[in-house]
């Protein structure tokens, strides 16, 4: 089962996703990247049905880049999230809906960091922390208990596979954390 998590801090957003691409019981890939870079400061994390994720995420990615080419400036994270949600909603009642669950994380110069939760029913919520997948059931309660808005980045500890951090300087790869059997 695929898992995404995002946590917003005072001046950063931390996102992490698992790296497994599975087909029923077989793990086909151990190093599959689920994060799509929409712009220098926006990341889209996408899980869901096999082909829909890549097709939809790349469609959004190219459209955001096209906006920048046409207008000369980038979409803000909030605008990108609403654009994504609009596309999900438009396709929802068509013959080919996209079955994808998304987290969009970005840093805006005026609004600061933002984390947006979207699911396949085209809902959108700006949240301080969010997660998708079966792991969400477990981690959301932990985050409810321990999350504080002003937490500095050094005190975070997440065990997951592929972690990225977004702040005013852009997107930074953090080290890949893997669980090792002891």
């Amino acid at each position, binding site marked *: *089962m*695929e898992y995404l998590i995002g946590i917003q801090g005072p001046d950063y957003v931390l996102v992490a996703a698992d790296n497994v*691409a*599975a*087909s*029923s*019981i*077989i793990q*086909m*890939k151990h190093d*599959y990247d689920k994060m799509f870079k929409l712009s220098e400061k926006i990341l889209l994390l996408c*899980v*869901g*049905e*096999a*082909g*829909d994720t*890549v*097709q939809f995420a790349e469609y959004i990615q190219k459209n955001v880049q096209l906006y920048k080419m046409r207008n000369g400036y980038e979409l803000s994270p909030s605008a990108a999230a609403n654009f994504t949600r609009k596309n999900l909603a438009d396709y*929802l*009642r068509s*013959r*080919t*809906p996209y*079955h994808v*669950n998304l987290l969009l994380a970005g840093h805006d110069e005026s609004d600061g960091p933002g984390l947006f939760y979207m*699911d*396949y029913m085209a809902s959108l919520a700006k949240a301080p922390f969010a997660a998708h*997948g*079966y792991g969400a*059931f477990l981690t959301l309660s932990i985050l409810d208990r321990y999350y504080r808005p002003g937490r500095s980045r050094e005190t975070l500890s997440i065990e997951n596979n592929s972690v990225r951090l977004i702040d005013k300087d852009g997107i930074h790869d953090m080290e890949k954390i893997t669980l090792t059997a002891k």
Partner: protein
Amino acid sequence: MALSDYCLLERLKTSQTNCGDPQHIFMPPFPQATPFISRRTSRFGPPNHVLTVQRPFPLSHGTTTLGFIFQGGVIAAADTRASAGGLVACPAVHKITPIHSHLVVTSSGSGADCMLWERILIREIRLYELRHKRRLSIRASAKLLSCMLHPFKGTDVCVALTLGPRVIYVCSDGARLQGDIISVGSGSPYAYGVLDGGLSWSLSKEEAISLAREAVFRATHRDAYSGNNVDLFHIDAQVQQVKQCKYVRSQRLRD
């Protein structure tokens, strides 16, 4: 479950797709049919995967194909049985097709769909080469096939492309994965078991060929829908057909 039967509670439906979406359990009942089922009803009923026994997991391509990369290039291997339900429709089918001087395609799923899409891919690659005067790259070929298959999500085609120095898996439900070892089909778990144990980067060409042959042989031994012979291809700079129609039955089981 006894209590739920006693209470005449309808069994909760969970999503059958890869993500196993837990939100389906809590979804409020819609007055019309759920929007995601409509795509699945457009199956063309391919004969390859009509199963008489309920499987615990939805692997439904009656074949074993595999591809892996090593220091000497790429090996592609497949069995040669075409099954239609319980019938062996043809014991000598070519599931590996060279589609370019450096590209080879292994196919699984519906035989007719695979043949059609192979020919379409050959045509598109050749057209690109003629129009742009350069060869289409391997990942671009895979992406082209994936984008062409995307509108046909109901068809039961599953194509594992093994190309040049890359092995890419393209599926009719839209998945496109690049990896080092890919195996597709009902016999793929058995093949993965052998490959995961024996594969390393530094294999020689003969060792890699025998490993691929062994993996397909073990899969055909255990899987009812794979069998007969083993086709093997080794791709280096050009496609070289290594061994064809190796009779699997005459192999002695090694201890």
